[in-house]
């Protein structure tokens, strides 16, 4: 599903964020990405939906080689993904409903289908009653949940989430994790960067630890590690 071979990423300002990563993630896996602040987790994730291009090496996701993919096919590729961005990336001029619906509009779903699905996921993240609100009228955690809703609404083959519980209280975090597990059980590959030790240590899954842009640890049923 996801294959990285000898991937390096240096940002234009010279920061070497990813330094030779080899990794392979199969269909249906649930993977945590952990590591200290600035280790390269987000960069690692951005390489997978091609927000960033690798400086060196090949990245193959869902059958698409992201190094050589044609400009025109990138949108098609991205539609098979669901992404929860670390900074949410909600469209400020669209309401909560419209933000989530956008992910379905781009694939030209029928309005009735859109309506049903959007209301369903908003219900799942407990924001049905805020459907008409705009992002700036929401609390931090509510915005994060809209981002989660948008990422799962199109039933993606791969769900990529960058700290999806960073702004959530523990109860809501567990709720979100329950949703992710359920989606994972239905066959969706999940890749999630997180700082939440309790979650990683409780819901035991594969853990990839990144430090200084390299994979420091890759364990099948790992722990968060980094004990104080």
């Amino acid at each position, binding site marked *: 599903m996801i294959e990285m071979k000898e991937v390096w990423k240096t940002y234009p300002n010279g920061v070497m964020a990813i330094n030779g990563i080899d990794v392979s993630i199969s269909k249906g896996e649930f993977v945590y990405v952990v590591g200290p602040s600035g280790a390269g987790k987000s960069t690692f994730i951005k390489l997978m*939906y091609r*927000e960033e291009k690798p400086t060196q090496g090949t990245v193959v996701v869902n059958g698409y080689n992201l190094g050589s993919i044609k*400009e*025109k096919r*990138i*949108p*098609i590729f*991205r*539609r098979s*993904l669901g*992404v929860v*961005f670390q900074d949410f*990336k*909600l*469209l*400020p*001029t669209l309401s909560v409903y419209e933000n989530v619906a*956008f*992910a379905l*509009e*781009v*694939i*030209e779903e*029928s*309005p009735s289908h859109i309506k049903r699905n959007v209301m369903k996921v908003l219900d799942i993240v407990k924001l049905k009653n805020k459907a008409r609100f705009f992002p700036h009228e929401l609390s931090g955690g509510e915005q994060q949940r809209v981002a989660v809703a*948008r990422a799962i609404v*199109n039933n993606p083959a791969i769900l990529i989430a960058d700290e999806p519980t960073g702004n959530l209280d523990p109860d809501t975090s567990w709720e979100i994790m329950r949703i992710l597990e359920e989606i994972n059980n239905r066959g969706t590959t999940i890749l999630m960067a997180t700082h939440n030790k309790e979650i990683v240590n409780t819901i035991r899954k594969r853990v990839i630890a990144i430090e200084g842009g390299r994979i420091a640890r890759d364990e099948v049923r790992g722990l968060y590690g980094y004990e104080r």
Partner: protein
Amino acid sequence: MKGRTIFRHGKEGIKNLARNGWMTFASISAVAIMLLIVGVFLLLILNLNHFATSVEEDVEVRVFIDLTATTEQQEDLHKKIERVPNVDTITYLPKEEGLEQFIESLGEQGEIFESLRGENPLYDVFEVRAVTPQQTEGVANAIEKLPYVEEVGYGKDIVDQLFSFTSFARQVGLFLIIGLMFTTMFLIANTIKITIIARKREIKIMKLVGATNGFIRWPFFVEGLLLGVIGSLIPVAVLALAYHKLFDSFGQRIEFMFIDLLAPDPLLYQMAGILIGIGAFIGIWGSMMSVRKFLKV
């Protein structure tokens, strides 16, 4: 693209206009003001051109007929002139009438020449107009060779000067209006560009969520078109009203026979067409150009 998607793009474009409130107002007023300026100068220059043309059309060839020519010979000459290429109209002016006109044209000073009425020193004259003023010289040269033509006069020096002046004025006018149109285009596109740069982040997000370039572009197309058209309707309305008012009150307010305004009828429609055309084109173009820059995500 499915039908409902087209509909969606239209709806989205209109919504964006409303949601970007101040930005929309700024863009529309930029379009409106620039096209108002273009429109004012367009009307001004078209009227000046009209004025220049009417001055040029006053140019005529005066054919002085040999004093010895009989009435038949004069009629014969008339027919020959008629056959000269590019001749438009021929008017016969007997010498008595000629003197009358001459004395009148001198105004108060003319009285001095009243005494000439007895011993009229003038010739009978054919006043000949060419089809276009610029053909006057050729016509004059052709007529000069006909029999019983004593002399041909059309004020070569003055006419040449007049034509070189009107053509210079036309060039300046054309230069100004074209320059104005280009700067207008640039400025409007510029304004639209700023408003779209402010939405750069949004465009990036859309692409990251899987939107194709086309999907993002269409609402901007609609938005640009609407900006341009709405922005151009304002100056069209203002100019049409103002011009009508001016035209109606013109007869009374200023009285120069030699300046008369072009009739509003075809003029204002032409102007409306030009302004709305520019507005629509530039709205779309400015918007498309600017979006394009941010689509590479």
